[in-house]
């Protein structure tokens, strides 16, 4: 822990965050005081069993949820208590999400799915004005993830690996600084999973993208710079990747 505090350029950090969910009458504690700091350009994987709270931690970091106790900081600034619209904007500009089940919008084509972050960011008019440039950008991104030939397809017409590539392209479209990946390979066979991991490592290396990835698979987790284990609501061990 001392190591991380000494590290320069802390990008995003969670400090003593606690989170509990209500299930009927009972309060189910999920996180019991977790500290994590991630440097800029670092690729961190959070490993843990189902129900260990790793997804919840990711959601807290990505401002999809607020902690009961504790703080989330971006460049040392507290961000979890910002007003709703600022948090919406941060999600749009700073964070990119990748989910286990891809979570593409089924009504939209691959191209449109990838463009959604920009549609959300810009007003209808300013989006319309620069839509050509945006579309060009999206095409480039999709080319990079190897989906250049699938632009007009609906998500249901794609394979799992292709959907995840599309989801990655969507996450990158907003030019985020932090990529939050929730079991990105969890639903894919090992070969496709390996391809996705290659893509993520590639992005991390080339774009100086901070990546925080949640997984329950040790072999996947080990591909990151460092691995953090979450068990029973606490961070248990630090494993530096080779």
């Amino acid at each position, binding site marked *: 822990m001392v190591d991380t505090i000494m590290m320069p350029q802390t990008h995003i950090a969670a400090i003593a965050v606690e989170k509990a969910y209500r299930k009927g009458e009972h309060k189910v504690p999920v996180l019991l005081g977790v500290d994590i700091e991630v440097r800029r350009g670092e690729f961190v994987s959070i490993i843990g069993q189902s129900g260990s709270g790793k997804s919840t931690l990711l*959601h807290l970091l990505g401002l*999809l*949820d607020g902690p009961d106790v504790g703080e989330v900081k971006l460049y040392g600034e507290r961000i979890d208590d910002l007003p709703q619209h600022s948090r*919406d904007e941060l999600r749009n500009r700073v964070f990119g999400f990748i989910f286990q089940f891809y979570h593409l*919008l089924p*009504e939209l084509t691959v191209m449109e799915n990838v463009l*959604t972050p920009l549609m959300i960011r810009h007003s209808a008019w300013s989006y319309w004005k620069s839509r050509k440039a945006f579309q060009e950008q999206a095409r480039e991104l999709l080319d990079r993830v190897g989906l250049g030939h699938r632009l007009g397809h609906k998500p249901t017409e794609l394979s799992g690996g292709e959907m995840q590539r599309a989801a990655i392209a969507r996450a990158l479209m907003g030019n985020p600084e932090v990529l939050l990946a929730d079991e990105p390979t969890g639903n894919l066979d090992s070969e496709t999973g390996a391809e996705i991991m290659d893509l993520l490592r590639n992005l991390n290396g080339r774009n100086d993208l901070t990546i925080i990835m949640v997984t329950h698979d040790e072999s996947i987790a080990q591909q990151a710079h460092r691995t953090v284990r979450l068990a029973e609501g606490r961070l248990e061990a630090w494993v530096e990747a080779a």
Partner: protein
Amino acid sequence: MYKFLLCTRYLRTRYIALASIISVMLGVATMIVVNSVMAGFSHEMRSRIHEILADMVLEAMSMDGNQDPDWQMEKIREVAGQYIEDMSPTVEVYGLLTFRYGGQYIPRPVTLIGIEPASKNRVGDLAIHLENYKPTKDDNGNIVRPAEYALDHDPGWDLPATFMESRRLRAMERQAMRNHDEDDDGAQADGHGEQADDALLEKLGQTATDDKGKEEALGALMKARLYVGAQLISFPFPDKNEKKTRTVWMCQPGDDVMISTVSAGKSPEPRSFHATIVDVFKSGMSEYDSNLVFMNLDELQRIRGMIDPPDDPERGVRSITSIQIKLKDFKDAKIVADRLQAAFPPGFYTVRTWEQKQGPLLAAVDVESTILNVLLFMIIAVAGFGILAIFFMIVVEKTRDIGILKSLGASSQGVMSIFVSYGLSLGMVGSGVGVVVGLLFVRYINEIERALTYITGRKVFDETIYYFPSIPTRVDAFTVLWVASGAILIAIMASILPARRAALLHPVQALRHE
């Protein structure tokens, strides 16, 4: 931007939304059609009432009337001459019309109106409602007999020649029968046949009038002449063999009928007299056609004793109960009414416009249309609840997508506006199509009616009942606008609740939603 994209995508991919579009459309179309038809009917009715009633009436407070129509008209011209186009003096009184049909004497309560047909025709439309001015047509609409008079012919109290001829023939027949009966030892007929009719009419007639100059010349007309409302002397008869409703006439021009009424004066006395029908009055307003009998004014005044002194019809001062006034512009009615009110002593005269005279009827139509509108608007409200239910369903179905959008940085208002604009577009499409369908329906309502009649084999819109040759319609742009915007408003309101629910979804829970 994503709002519009998703909104249009949902619109195109959720066919269940079509159900709510259709219900909105049907509601809007129904409202437009019903409103147009009702407006058409009431407009037609109003114009017919207006045609018959004249713009304004100066009425005497008592049934006895006020004396000296010339002086009254002079006075009216004096105070409001520049607004007045024409005037006609009338006497209105209640009476009983009795005629014989199918071996029975049929009495009908009537409003007896003494008129001068020429001036009456100038203050309102009279001639166009008289049967002698219309050609007789057979069932297929072919003219079998041309109109007796052209429309520019002033209506009068003469019987057209064709009717005159048959009247004379009947009188001759009757006379021959009577002579024959007398030969047969004066045996009374068995209660059938024309002579019994005459006998009874004569008996009735003995009560008061001095109308004994009857049949001096063979087939000569009575002094009292009538235009009788068509429904008083006819009835629709559904012919089961031909599946047609035909009108059966119980009397015809040239027939004599009995009129009973009361005399003017402090103690009214019954008066009965014979009168000859010279024409049939058919305006299409059932209230008039089943109630009004027009009569020659001077004879009515004489019979009711409205001439002073009574034994000098030539120079005596006559009384009338009302003066019908036609204005140059009906917009001036208020001014004229005020001036007349001031000029004539209030205890003896009242001034009313035709709208005031028919106030309860017109008010009833208004109330009817208001209630109908409220009820029909509930149809659209039902459509609104349909939208509400369908939207809740779509929100549940789209919960995960909402979570995705939020994770991508969409705000709650943004998510809400997806569904509100979805509701707005449903409302707009629904009411837009509804307006088009409604207007087309109104435009082709008579063709549709014919098609329905052809398919069902039953007449949907029976002219013999309604008197309109086709279904009258009147589209009011304001009503259409009002209905359409009301429907859109309801669609928006119905979508706000589900949209709020969508907006308030917690992103994490939404993402977990399976």
